């Protein structure tokens, strides 16, 4: 009995003393925290994204960094949990991060409240708050390349196209099977707006996270017989949904998923059973032939430096991680153009960089994204920069593009974004940024 007591007291004192204060970052390097999740119900989808993100940073360092400023990064496991994400953020805050990305809409909401005070821009490529595209209200949020309202709108556009026009949608039924969380609820305002305008019926079917039991949901789908099902899930919920759709005989051709529900991980177990399932893409899809993919394979994976398995490179979620990292890095580079090339950028300076991002097609091609991405150009008022999407479909073995490039309809999007952003500004007692503030 004595030994365990002594051991325990020793352990406890060690705990108290050695909960280390984080080491301050070297001032010569650009620090990027990587909030990721490689465990838990969302790990199958979060892991390839994190691998892509980190691989791109490694590639940048191999090429000498951003104008000879090396990048350091540190991964922090969040498990898709908001509280843990906040804890990771607080812990890594002292290392002077260039920007923070959370890969979680819930965590984005929480960190949006803290980031302005800490002067760290929040980069949310393809997720986060849809209204944060309004840069005049959300100074520190950057949902670059697309938000959920863009995804929802282009899905509806694709559905309308399939029907033969918006007018043909009148009287039809669309069911939204969504993850019961802030992430899943994001598209609802936009689809409801479209339903109001075009006269189709929207049925909302929430799935309790993590979404492992969906039998009742899909029985309801079978009974209601909607013309289309929009799937807004993440992690295990996606593959379960497709399996249940197969088990209840709902045609997968009539299913459209958001870009987080359209990856190899979601369909590979079902393989042929998911044939015909469509998903919207945020600019890129599965691009095994892209230049950047070849570069990463040759420069990183061939040397054994790859973060994940080689087979992942070029897959949808891996590429999304690469794209997110690229946008962040280019934001830092753009900041260096103004504040000093070859110098380490602070959070505020990176914010300016992300706000004045001008990724032209030649620039994107040079970076290796030819044919994968379209130009992105942000501004003070517009923190989204681009709203290009495509639809890709699973053919049993691969994701194949089945549509042209689409853009979200500004007529619908802009008023909704402005109205919601205004509401946020009123609640938080913020004033809209004007011309002068935009120059800083």
């Amino acid at each position, binding site marked *: 009995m004595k030994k365990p007591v002594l051991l*325990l007291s020793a352990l406890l004192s060690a705990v108290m003393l050695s909960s280390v204060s984080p080491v301050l970052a070297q001032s010569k390097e650009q620090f990027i925290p990587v909030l990721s999740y*490689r465990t838990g119900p969302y790990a199958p989808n979060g892991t390839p994204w994190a691998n892509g993100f980190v691989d791109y940073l490694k590639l940048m360092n191999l090429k000498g960094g951003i104008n000879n400023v090396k990048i350091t990064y540190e*991964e922090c496991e969040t498990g898709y949990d908001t509280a843990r994400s906040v804890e990771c953020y607080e*812990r890594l*805050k002292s290392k002077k991060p260039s920007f923070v990305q959370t890969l979680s809409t*819930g965590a984005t*909401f929480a960190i949006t409240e803290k980031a302005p005070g800490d002067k760290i821009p929040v980069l949310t490529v393809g997720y986060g708050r849809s209204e944060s595209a309004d840069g005049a209200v959300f100074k520190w949020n950057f949902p670059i390349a697309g938000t959920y309202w863009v995804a929802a709108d282009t899905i509806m556009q694709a559905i309308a196209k399939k029907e033969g026009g918006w007018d043909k949608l009148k009287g039809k039924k669309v069911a939204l099977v969504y993850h019961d*969380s802030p992430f899943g609820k994001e598209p609802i305002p936009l689809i409801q707006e479209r339903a109001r305008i075009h006269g189709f019926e929207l049925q909302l079917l929430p799935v309790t996270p993590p979404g492992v039991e969906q039998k009742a949901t899909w029985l309801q789908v079978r009974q209601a017989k909607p013309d289309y099902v929009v799937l807004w899930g993440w992690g295990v919920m996606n593959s379960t949904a497709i399996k249940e759709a197969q088990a209840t005989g709902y045609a997968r051709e009539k299913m459209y998923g958001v870009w987080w529900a359209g990856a190899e991980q979601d369909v590979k177990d079902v393989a042929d059973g998911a044939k015909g399932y469509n998903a919207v893409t945020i600019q890129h899809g599965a691009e095994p032939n892209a230049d950047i993919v070849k570069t990463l394979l040759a420069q990183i994976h061939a040397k054994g430096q790859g973060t994940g398995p080689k087979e992942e490179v070029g897959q949808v979620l891996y590429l999304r991680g690469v794209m997110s990292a690229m946008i962040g890095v280019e934001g830092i580079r753009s900041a260096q153009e103004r504040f000093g090339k070859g110098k380490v950028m602070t959070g505020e300076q990176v914010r300016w960089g992300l706000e004045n991002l001008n990724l032209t097609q030649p620039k994107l091609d040079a970076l290796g994204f030819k044919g994968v991405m379209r130009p992105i150009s942000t501004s003070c008022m517009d923190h989204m920069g681009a709203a290009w999407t495509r639809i890709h479909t699973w053919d049993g073995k691969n994701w194949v593009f089945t549509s042209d490039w689409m853009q979200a309809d500004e007529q619908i999007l802009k008023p909704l974004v402005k109205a919601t952003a205004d509401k946020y500004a009123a609640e938080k007692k913020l004033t809209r940024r004007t011309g002068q503030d935009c120059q800083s």
Partner: protein
Amino acid sequence: MFYRENGQLKTSYQADQQIFPIAQDRWFILAMLLLAFVVAPLLATDYWFSAILIPFVIMAMAAIGVNILVGYCGQISLGSGAFMAVGAYGAYNFFARVPDMPLIPALILGGLCATVFGVLFGLPSLRVRGLYLAVATLAAQFFADWMFLRIKWFTLDTPSGSVSVSNLQVFGLPIESDVSKYLFCLTLLCLVALLAKNLVRGAIGREWMAIRDMDVAAAVIGIRPMYAKLSAFAVSSFIIGVAGALWAFIYMGSWEPSAFSVNESFRLLFMVIIGGLGSIMGGFLGAAFIILLPIFLNQALPFIAGMVGIEISTTVVSHTELMIFGGLIVWFLIVEPHGLAKLWSIGKQKMRVWPFPY
């Protein structure tokens, strides 16, 4: 030898009945209070505040609440997360809907909402006992999960279901900086701990302990089980509700219903079991252990791996953390099922009789 109370004679009932009758204890508590109120704000870094001290203070309060229910009254409850959620959303609704509502009344009203919820879901305890009750309280947990996701009124009709608070202030002093947040929570914790300690020392506490030990016998000697059990639920959920409101307002700032999931309930139960059932000190010790352990492991594991020259990924760290956490809990329960508080009292006893072994 260090701890003798020789010569400390009491001359009044009041002196005899005080919480810390031994002078050394009083000095020790004074030193701890000084450390907490004065030294910590001066020395601690931002990270210490936001990641360690503030969560510790809030969770200690919640652990005290859970201990009253589980440790003193013997009703195993797995619905603590739900009570925190009700407290948080209740306080939020009062804070956001009533113009110019001051913070402390909002917190108290949130606590009262949690009390009502707690008493309601505590009613089954009158009929069901033991493990069955534990599982029955999960009904409260999942119901609360659903309620705050689905009923838009609670989240002020935001489409996303995520809510946030800002511009907190108490008596004109803003609670924005880490130090002010910490001191505010600490003050509330001291008040709650005092309240709880006096409750469990009083008649109602003895009733709770009688119900815990042998509820049929307690009923026979005239303790009304309904009153005792429901009052335990009421007091416990009030404290947990206030803690939940603090967690949401002060620590998170912006939260969604999944912040108070069933994992929180398990975490609180762990804190209480490891800290020691049936002791107020146990709440503090358990909260410290559960909060510090993941952070310690997060820093220590890569450090140790680095010493041996292996680079480990966050996945491995995460999984090892889980294994060590589970293993430690089991080890703890084997070594000292009565928790850290028992170890503490054994330590004190050793100090009293030193250099003799017993």
